[in-house]
């Protein structure tokens, strides 16, 4: 295929609630298509649910984000590869081994034990909003700090350091931060996490890092670098994702008051609603890429070793072969057969934590601030169309 024939893939949306219309056309006409990304690189775009599931469970595709074939949407070249590989980037058999060392921290039971503390964090932030001026930016006052504090809780960051942790992680997710600011905040967080791990090695605590240290001691030396990398990954994987889902879910529920009213009448429905909101927004599709390790034939096309595949899960999650009225937000749908957390061995490790956070947020926010509304016309809101994780930049609300 000559490069002139490869059509460009736009990531521009016309509706904030739907993937680009062009992606749907691809799903209907060329579900595995070679495309040119806005940064000039070529990759395969995969838009059908069944193909995305197949690729994400196929060990012939690698998660190595530093491979030159990996479909990156950013303009910059991939980051320098002297950093230790994160769980997210590993392939079998290393991936399974690494994942199994932390899996126990994310069981359904252990996650649910965090419920009361999450409720407290959510309530404190609503108290502060209610006591403060109106309008207020929901993103800064609520959506971002809540998941960041939940990660503090998970890692066992002492209360006195929360502010330090919050401001640095805030810089990482702020699109207005300059490259230097991001580099400095990353450095400071890494240093901080290094000290935190060292302190916990001195004085063991009963939290994720403390238990990991104890476990590593049983089998040998404590690997500080490993624990710092894990802590950092949990922060980058669990902070902005959850925050964006909080803002987007709040917005869409405020815009569809009959659906919100039905939810408020019966909180038992919230968990199913969260599942549907996850499907409906599929905010992390740009993080779902792979690179072929060998030639693979799939859906009538030949993917060559070294070529990248971009799994457009937002469009895959609206595949009419899997979901009826797929473009509709149906809070009673209750289907978990979606790809918002990915699929296969890398499927989101923090998924049950994210579900629990969203469930508590949705139940609490609208109960405690029943008059909550957007303070600006919705068409004035600015959406993160060009970011790896979709969301709202700023969301002024009042009540």
């Amino acid at each position, binding site marked *: 295929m000559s490069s002139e024939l490869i059509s460009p893939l736009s990531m521009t949306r016309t509706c904030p609630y739907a993937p680009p219309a062009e992606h749907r056309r691809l799903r209907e006409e060329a579900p595995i298509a070679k495309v040119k990304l806005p940064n000039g690189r070529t990759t395969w775009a995969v838009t059908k649910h069944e193909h995305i599931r197949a690729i*994400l*469970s196929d060990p012939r595709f690698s998660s190595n984000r530093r491979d030159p074939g990996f479909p990156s949407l950013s303009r910059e070249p991939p980051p320098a590869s002297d950093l230790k590989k994160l769980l997210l980037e590993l392939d079998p058999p290393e991936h*399974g081994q690494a*994942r*199994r060392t932390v*899996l*126990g*921290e*994310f*069981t*359904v*039971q252990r*996650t649910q034990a965090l419920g009361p503390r999450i409720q407290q964090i959510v309530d404190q932030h609503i108290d502060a909003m209610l006591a403060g001026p109106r309008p207020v930016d929901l993103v800064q006052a609520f959506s971002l700090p809540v998941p960041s504090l939940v990660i503090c809780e998970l890692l066992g960051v002492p209360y006195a350091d929360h502010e330090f942790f919050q401001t640095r992680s805030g810089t990482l997710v702020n699109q207005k931060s300059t490259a230097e600011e991001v580099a400095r905040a990353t450095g400071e967080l890494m240093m901080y996490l290094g000290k935190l791990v060292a302190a916990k090695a001195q004085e063991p605590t009963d939290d994720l890092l403390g238990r990991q240290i104890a476990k590593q001691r049983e089998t040998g030396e404590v690997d500080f670098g490993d624990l710092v990398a894990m802590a950092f990954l949990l922060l980058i994987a669990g902070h902005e994702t959850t925050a964006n889902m909080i803002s987007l879910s709040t917005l869409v529920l405020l815009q569809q008051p009959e659906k919100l009213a039905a939810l408020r009448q019966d909180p038992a429905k919230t968990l199913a609603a969260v599942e549907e909101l996850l499907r409906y927004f599929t905010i992390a599709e740009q993080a779902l890429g792979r690179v072929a390790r060998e030639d693979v034939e799939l859906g009538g096309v030949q993917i060559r070793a070294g070529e990248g595949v971009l799994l457009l899960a937002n469009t895959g999650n609206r595949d009419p072969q899997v979901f009826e009225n797929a473009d509709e937000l149906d809070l009673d749908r209750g289907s*978990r*057969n979606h790809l918002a*957390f*990915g*699929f*296969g*061995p*890398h*499927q*989101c*490790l923090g*998924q*049950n934590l994210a*579900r629990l956070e969203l469930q508590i947020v949705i139940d609490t926010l609208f109960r405690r601030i029943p008059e909550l509304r957007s303070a600006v016309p919705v068409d004035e809101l600015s959406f993160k169309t060009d970011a790896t994780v979709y969301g709202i930049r700023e969301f002024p609300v009042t009540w």
Partner: protein
Amino acid sequence: MRVLVDENKCCGAGQCVMIAPRVFDQRDDGIVILLDESPPKELHPAVREAACVCPGAAIVLEE
């Protein structure tokens, strides 16, 4: 219905435990435990859903 689980394929995100807690549980290390290998009929839809969404294809049903 007979349910089989393959611990080696389990990636432990606990979807099955959320969907069918009377049939699936997790060990402390996150790997699936099968509580009931021939669950009663009323649980079959939930068990089928768990098998369908299991990200590791670790749940196999013989019906």
